C-alpha cells in the first residue's frame, strides 16, 4: 500500500514540474527520421515511432501507453511503430511494472506527451504559413489548415517542429473524451505477430557475440553461507569453461554461490551436479511450515499489537446477540513466471550493459552498480519483453548475479535459472494466519469485527509483502472493529505477488463475511448491499457507492439467487477493492463426491474509472487474474529445514485448460480517472470460489490450499 502511494506521489511531482520531456532535432543517420521528443520519432514516410516507457510483462503496457500518445496526436494506429524506451528515469520518470500503476500514473502524462508533439507540429505549420496556431486542426497524421483545407503530413513538418520550444504541458488543452477515436478501441498486442512466428524478443532470447552461458548455484536454505566448494570436477566437465565462487552482498541481490560458465546453458546445468558445496545452513534451519503454524496458533491466543481500532470490540462481542469465531490459514506461494529468471550482461572498461526481463529496470541498474561498486551512470539496462512477472521481477537479484559473473568471466554472460532455481530462490508470497471473531446484534446487523492476524517479520519489521492491513470491506463498514497483529520472525525472503497482501487477505475476510451473512440468516449479496448502503466508509480512497454498483450489476448478470442448482453445485460472491479498482465476482462451482471441484463459470464486474483504454487487453487481464486466482487456491510452498519442499511444476498445481472456467467479465465506468487492471480482479475470486463451495456442500473453506481430500473428509463428517 505504502509503496504504491509513494510511487504515485513521486510521479505526480515529476509531472507537476513539467514531465521530463527532451526535445530537439536529432535526425538519424539516414536523415529520414526526426526525434521530436523523447517519446515521438517521426519518419519522412509519415510512420511515427512512439516509445513505451514501462516494461512489458504481459500486462499490455507496450500497446496501451502508446495508444494514449497516439490518441492526442491523431495518429492512425496503422502508422504507429512502438519501441520500448531506454531505462532512464531522468527522461521518462519512474519506470516499472508494479502495483497496477502504469495506467494510474500515465493516463494524464502520456496524453500530455502526445498533445505536446501535436502542438509542436501545428506550430511548425503555423510558422511555415504565417497563419495563427488556432487556424489548424489535426487528423489522420496530418496538420490541416482549417480555413483552406490545406494539409501537411507530420513527416513533412517534423524537422521544423523539432526546433520549436516545447509547450508547458500543464497548459496544453487535451482532447475532449467524446472525440476519442483510439482510447476505448481494442488494439491487439503490438509484439504479437512476432510472438506467433517465434521471433527472439524475450529476455531469455538475448545473444551477444562471444557470449557464454552461466548457472549460479546457491544454497536452497535462506541465509546460508558457503564454506567451501571443490571446483576441480566441474571445471573438467564437458563444455565447461570456468567455475568460480562469489561472495554474497545483499539478500535483494548477490548471495553466496558458485558460477559455472559453459558453451551452452545445458552443459553448465549438467555440470553443476558435480558440485558438492559445503554450506553453513544454521541460519535457516529453524524455518519450517509446521512450526510456523504451531507458533501462529499460540500467538493468536496472546495480545499482539493493535494496529487499527474503532469503537469497543470487546464490549460489542460481549453484548452481541450472536457471535462467531474462525481460524483462517493461507500458505506461502511462489511466483513462477513462465519465463525463468535470466539476464545477459556485458562488462567492459566503459561500464556495464544489462539485458533483462525485469519489472523494475531503474532499481535494477542501481543494484548492479552497488554490487560491482561502480557509478550508477555506468550501468545501462535494456528492458526486454518479460515472459510474465507477477511481482517476482520487481526484485533484480538475477541481474546482480549476471553482472558479477560477467565481470569475473571476462566475456558477455547469459545467466539462466532453472525452474528449480526459480522456485528455490523465490521471494515468496508470505503465508498468514488469522483468528477472526464477529458479533451480530439483535436486528441481524454486524456489530463487531475482530481480527488477530499473524504474519511474518524480517529484521524485526513486517516482511516485504506481508502486511495484513488490507482494504477489506468488512473492516471498513463495521462500527466496532479491531485489527491485531503478531509477528513470526523468518529468514525466508518474501515479496510481492500479483495483488500483494490482497491476494491473501481478501480470501480471509470475504470468506468470513460470508460466514457472518449466513449466521445472520441473510443472503450474502443482500447483506453486503445493506452494509454498503449504511456506511460511507472511513477511507478517503474507498467509495462504497462504486462497490455497490458493481455488486448489484454482477448479481444481476449471474442471476444470483434466481435458479435452483443441482446437488453439488453452488454459487458464491465476494467483493474487493484493491489497486484503486472495484470488483465484485460470483463463482459457480461443481463439487464431486470425492471432493474434486471445478469452477464452471465466473461473472465479474469491475469499475476502474472513466475509460477502458484498450478493451481487449483489459478483458484479457480480468480473465487471466480470475483464472490465476482460482489456480492459486490449489498451490502452496511449504518449508522444511529452511528450504522449499516443492521443486518444479509437478509439485505446484496451476490452472490448466480443462479447469479453466467460462468467464463473463464486464466493466462499469465512473467519473474517476482510469486505473490499472493487472491485479484488482484477482483478490475477490478466491473467496467467491470458497463461498460457492460452501453453498454447494455446506463445508466452510478456511484453509488454503483447497485440497479435494479435505472437502471429501468434510463431507463424511457433515
Amino acid at each position, binding site marked *: 500500500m505504502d509503496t504504491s502511494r509513494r510511487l504515485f506521489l513521486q510521479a505526480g511531482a515529476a509531472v507537476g514540474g513539467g514531465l521530463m520531456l527532451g526535445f530537439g532535432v536529432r535526425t538519424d543517420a539516414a536523415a529520414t527520421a526526426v526525434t521530436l521528443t523523447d517519446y515521438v520519432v517521426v519518419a519522412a514516410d509519415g510512420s511515427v515511432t512512439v516509445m513505451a516507457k514501462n516494461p512489458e510483462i*504481459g*500486462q*499490455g503496457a507496450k500497446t496501451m501507453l502508446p495508444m494514449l500518445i497516439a490518441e492526442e496526436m491523431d495518429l492512425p494506429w496503422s502508422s504507429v511503430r512502438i519501441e520500448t524506451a531506454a531505462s532512464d528515469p531522468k527522461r521518462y520518470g519512474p519506470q516499472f511494472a508494479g502495483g497496477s500503476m502504469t495506467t494510474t500514473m500515465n493516463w494524464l502524462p502520456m496524453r500530455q506527451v502526445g498533445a505536446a508533439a501535436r502542438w509542436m507540429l501545428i506550430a511548425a505549420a503555423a510558422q511555415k504559413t504565417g497563419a495563427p496556431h488556432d487556424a489548424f486542426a489535426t487528423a489522420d497524421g496530418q496538420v490541416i489548415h482549417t480555413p483552406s483545407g490545406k494539409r501537411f503530413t507530420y513527416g513533412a513538418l517534423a524537422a521544423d517542429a523539432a526546433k520549436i520550444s516545447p509547450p508547458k504541458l500543464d497548459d496544453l488543452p487535451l482532447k475532449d473524451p467524446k472525440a476519442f477515436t483510439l482510447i476505448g478501441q*481494442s488494439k491487439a*498486442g503490438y*509484439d*504479437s*505477430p512476432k*510472438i*506467433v*512466428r*517465434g*521471433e*527472439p524478443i*524475450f529476455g*531469455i*532470447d538475448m*545473444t551477444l557475440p562471444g557470449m557464454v*552461458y552461466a548457472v549460479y548455484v546457491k544454497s536452497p536454505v535462506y541465509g546460508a553461507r558457503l564454506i567451501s566448494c571443490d571446483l576441480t570436477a566441474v571445471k573438467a566437465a*564437458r563444455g565447461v569453461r570456468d567455475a568460480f565462487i562469489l561472495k554474497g552482498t545483499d539478500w535483494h541481490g548477490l548471495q553466496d554461490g558458485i558460477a559455472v560458465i559453459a558453451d*551452452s*546453458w*545445458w552443459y553448465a*546445468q549438467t555440470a553443476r551436479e558435480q558440485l558438492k558445496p559445503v554450506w553453513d545452513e544454521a541460519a535457516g534451519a529453524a524455518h519450517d511450515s509446521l512450526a510456523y503454524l504451531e507458533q501462529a496458533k499460540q500467538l493468536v491466543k496472546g495480545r499482539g499489537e493493535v494496529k487499527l481500532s474503532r469503537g469497543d470490540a470487546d464490549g460489542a462481542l460481549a453484548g452481541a446477540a450472536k457471535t462467531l469465531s474462525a481460524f483462517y490459514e493461507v500458505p506461502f506461494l511462489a511466483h*513462477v*513466471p*513462465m*519465463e*525463468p529468471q535470466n539476464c545477459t550482461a556485458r562488462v567492459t572498461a566503459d561500464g556495464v550493459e544489462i539485458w533483462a526481463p525485469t519489472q523494475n529496470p531503474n532499481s535494477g541498474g542501481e543494484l548492479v552498480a552497488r554490487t560491482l561498486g561502480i557509478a550508477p551512470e555506468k550501468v545501462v539496462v535494456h528492458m526486454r*519483453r*518479460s*515472459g*510474465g*512477472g*507477477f511481482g517476482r521481477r520487481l526484485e533484480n537479484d538475477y541481474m546482480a548475479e549476471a553482472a558479477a559473473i560477467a565481470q569475473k568471466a571476462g566475456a558477455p554472460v547469459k545467466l*539462466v535459472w*532453472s*525452474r528449480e532455481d526459480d522456485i528455490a530462490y523465490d521471494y515468496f508470497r508470505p503465508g498468514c494466519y488469522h483468528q477472526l471473531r464477529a458479533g451480530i446484534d439483535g436486528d441481524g446487523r454486524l456489530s463487531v469485527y475482530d481480527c488477530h492476524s499473524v504474519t511474518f517479520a524480517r529484521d524485526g519489521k513486517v516482511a516485504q509483502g506481508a502486511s495484513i492491513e488490507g482494504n477489506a470491506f468488512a473492516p471498513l463498514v463495521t462500527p466496532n472493529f479491531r485489527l491485531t497483529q503478531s509477528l513470526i520472525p523468518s529468514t525466508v525472503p518474501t515479496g510481492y505477488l500479483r495483488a500483494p497482501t490482497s491476494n491473501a487477505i481478501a480470501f480471509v475476510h470475504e470468506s468470513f463475511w460470508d460466514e457472518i451473512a449466513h449466521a445472520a440468516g441473510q443472503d450474502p449479496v443482500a447483506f453486503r448491499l445493506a452494509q454498503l448502503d449504511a456506511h460511507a466508509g472511513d477511507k478517503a480512497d474507498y467509495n462504497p457507492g462504486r462497490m455497490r454498483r458493481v455488486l448489484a450489476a454482477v448479481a444481476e448478470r449471474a442471476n444470483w439467487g434466481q435458479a435452483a442448482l443441482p446437488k453439488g453445485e453452488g454459487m458464491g460472491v465476494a467483493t474487493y477493492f484493491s489497486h484503486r479498482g472495484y470488483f465484485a465476482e460470483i463463482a459457480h462451482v461443481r463439487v464431486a463426491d470425492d471432493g474434486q471441484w471445478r469452477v*464452471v*463459470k465466473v461473472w465479474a464486474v469491475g469499475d476502474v474509472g472513466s475509460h477502458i483504454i484498450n478493451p*481487449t487487453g483489459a478483458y*484479457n*487481464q480480468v*480473465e*487471466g487474474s*480470475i*483464472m*490465476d486466482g482460482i*489456480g492459486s487456491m490449489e498451490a502452496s510452498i511449504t518449508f522444511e529445514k529452511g528450504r522449499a519442499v516443492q521443486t*518444479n*511444476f*509437478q509439485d505446484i498445481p*496451476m*490452472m*490448466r*485448460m*480443462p479447469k*479453466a472456467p*467460462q*468467464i463473463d467479465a464486464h466493466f462499469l465506468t465512473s467519473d474517476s480517472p482510469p486505473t490499472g487492471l493487472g491485479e484488482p480482479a484477482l483478490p475477490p475470486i478466491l473467496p467467491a470460489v470458497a463461498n460457492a463451495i460452501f453453498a454447494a456442500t455446506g463445508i466452510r473453506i478456511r484453509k488454503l490450499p483447497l485440497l479435494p481430500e479435505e472437502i471429501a473428509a468434510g463431507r463424511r463428517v457433515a
Partner: protein
Amino acid sequence: MLTLNINGKPRQLDVLEDMPLLWALRDVLDLKGTKFGCGVAQCGACTVHVDGEATRACVTPVGTVLDAKITTIEGVAASPQGKALQAAWLDLDVMQCGYCQAGQIMTAAALLARTPKPDDTAIDDAMEGNLCRCATYKRIRAAIKTASGQSADDRREA
C-alpha cells in the same frame, strides 16, 4: 557432427547425442522460438513436432530424433493448420506475456492435423500439458476453434 532435419532443412551441429533438442535449437542453432519453461516435461513451453507429433523438446535427446522431421514454431506456418492458428491467435489477441504461446500453437497444430474439428473435450485433453501462467485459456480455446472453422463458443456447459 550430427544432422537434424529442422523445418525442412538439414542442420548440422557438433554436440553430444544426449543434449536435449531444446538446447540444441536455442543455443546451438539459434532457433529461439522454442521456449524453456521447466526442463521436465511439465509445462509444454518447449513443444515442437517430431514427425508431426507434439513433443517436449526439453526431454528429447537430439540422438533420438536424428532421422525425424522436426518442426518448430519458426516453421509452423508451412502447414495450413499452423498458418490458421497463427492468424486466429492474432485475431483473438490471445497473448498476454506470450512466452507459452509458441508451445500452445505447436500443440494445437498437432491436434488439428489429427482432429480437424476438435470439440471441447479434445481441446482439454490435447492442451492440458501446456501451461499458460497468464491463463489465457479462454482465448486459446476460442482460437483453436476459430482456426478449425468452428464457432468460438465454449460449449462445455449449457
